[in-house]
């Protein structure tokens, strides 16, 4: 598999001696949905900022799409990555949804004659076509994040980073964004790197990187990493609901697999029940 992000021995300090990112290494495969999981203050967002060169690393190596991230290559790296930040209110520039999506295109010197077609295409992808002339500030949180994603898609990145992009949204907005991102991952093969502390979201991803105090504590498939209850709890993280139930049942002597996926657990329980 092709590695699209390679991080090697990365070190970053906001203050001297305070290693916010403490010599970490990880790799992300092209086309996967990876979550970086950790509690508030674990260094998650700092990683996102380092990956797009908003912060400069102290030492170590970051490669995106095979290109070394350094001052010279900054634009080549950034053109591959789009990032959606946590607060939907902090990422608008344009006075209308249309202007906002156009902003990135203008920066890339896209021919203004072509812009409308591009804007319409991506606004419709995120289901915001009817809102092109609306003021971004008057949209709901979920709608705002969808506009942010449309703006990113218009730049055709190969990677989208979501930095707790749904943590300020209501459940409906959260679902809208999660569905959209999964769809982009599947249909357009865009690599997704989602930074979150939502364990149920992590359970639905392909790969999980567990972060604490600036170090990678564990990484692997969700059914490996998210099965380690003690480790998750010691990192102030929750345990998937399906895991709690299936583990509880096993303790009662019921023969059942341990699950992190609710749907699968319901299926197995119903089968057991019908066989009774």
């Amino acid at each position: 598999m092709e590695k699209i992000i390679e991080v090697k021995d990365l070190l970053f300090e906001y203050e001297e001696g305070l290693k916010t990112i403490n010599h970490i290494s990880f790799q992300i495969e092209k086309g996967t949905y990876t979550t970086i999981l950790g509690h508030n203050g674990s260094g998650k967002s700092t990683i996102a900022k380092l990956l797009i060169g908003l912060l400069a690393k102290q030492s170590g190596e970051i490669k995106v799409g095979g290109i070394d991230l350094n001052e010279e290559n900054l634009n080549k790296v950034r053109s591959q990555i789009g990032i959606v930040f946590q607060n939907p209110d902090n990422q608008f520039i344009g006075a209308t949804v249309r202007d906002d999506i156009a902003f990135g295109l203008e920066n890339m010197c896209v021919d203004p004659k072509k812009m409308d077609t591009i804007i319409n295409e991506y606004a419709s992808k995120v289901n915001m076509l009817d809102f092109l002339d609306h003021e971004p500030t008057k949209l709901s949180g979920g709608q705002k994040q969808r506009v942010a994603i449309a703006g990113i898609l218009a730049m055709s990145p190969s990677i989208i980073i979501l930095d707790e992009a749904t943590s300020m949204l209501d459940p409906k907005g959260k679902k809208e964004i999660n569905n959209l991102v999964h769809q982009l991952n599947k249909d357009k093969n865009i690599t997704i790197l989602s930074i979150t502390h939502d364990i149920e979201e992590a359970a639905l991803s392909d790969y999980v990187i567990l972060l604490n105090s600036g170090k990678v504590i564990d990484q692997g498939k969700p059914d490996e990493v998210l099965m380690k209850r003690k480790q998750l709890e010691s990192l102030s993280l929750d345990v998937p609901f399906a895991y709690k139930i299936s583990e509880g049942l096993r303790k009662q002597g019921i023969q059942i697999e341990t699950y992190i996926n609710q749907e699968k657990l319901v299926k197995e329980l119903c089968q057991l029940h019908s066989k009774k």
Partner: protein
Amino acid sequence: MSITFKKVEHVYSENTPFSYHALKGVDLNIKTGSMTALIGHTGSGKSTLIQHINALLLPTSGEIQIEDVMITATNKPESLKPLRKKAGLVFQFPEYQLFEETILKDIIFGPKNFGIEESEAEIIAKKVLKLVGLDESYLEKSPFDLSGGQKRRVAIAGILAMDPDILILDEPTAGLDPQGAKEMLNLFKKINRSGKTIIIVSHDMNQVLEYCDDVIVMSNGKVERHESVDEIFKETEYLSSLSIDLPTITSFILQLNKHGFKIDSSIKDVDQLVKEIGGQL
């Protein structure tokens, strides 16, 4: 201290082209000492409603009674000062409200405004800071050097310092990690048990189920339901018509029941649910 709304209407920017009818005929009685969740869509009127409880907004018509204080369209703000002490409102993302040089100064700002001596206010500050889970070493730090979760604790401490009988919280755990959210809610529950009335705006039905007694559902500026937690989550069709999710555990039980299990859907506790499932296998 009971909170009563009678036929409360609120229209923003009345008689202008931007006029917006945010509260429509709200009748409500919130019991003293309860912990009540206020749920509903973005834009359903939740924030408008809570701002009436400490008279940040005055009703366009109708009246609100908070113990012996009456709030009406014409009640001038000067006479509402005692109310502001009774009802403390914590906005969403209260960390944006911090403004002082040190955490101590930020917390004592409120009590001093209500005429409490500085030395006494400092004693209060130490007490409330401990209550929100920060030690005294933080008092002289700048609130802006803290993490998001810590900032929020300081902001909430600033409200607690005024010792309100009613504490109103607008999505106090949004953006906090699960551990931070749990600590915060346990704190509110503790404050609630000491006799204070708590109103909490939340989108997280798991929290509502676990921590609250009653639920108020708002939709389109109206209060549509005001029931106990157990009752409200039985109304699955109604909630889904508002796209309000059920708590994880409740929706899980209902899925099992569809396939032949017979489990009481008001179970709130995972261990109890596990026992129940085990018993039916």
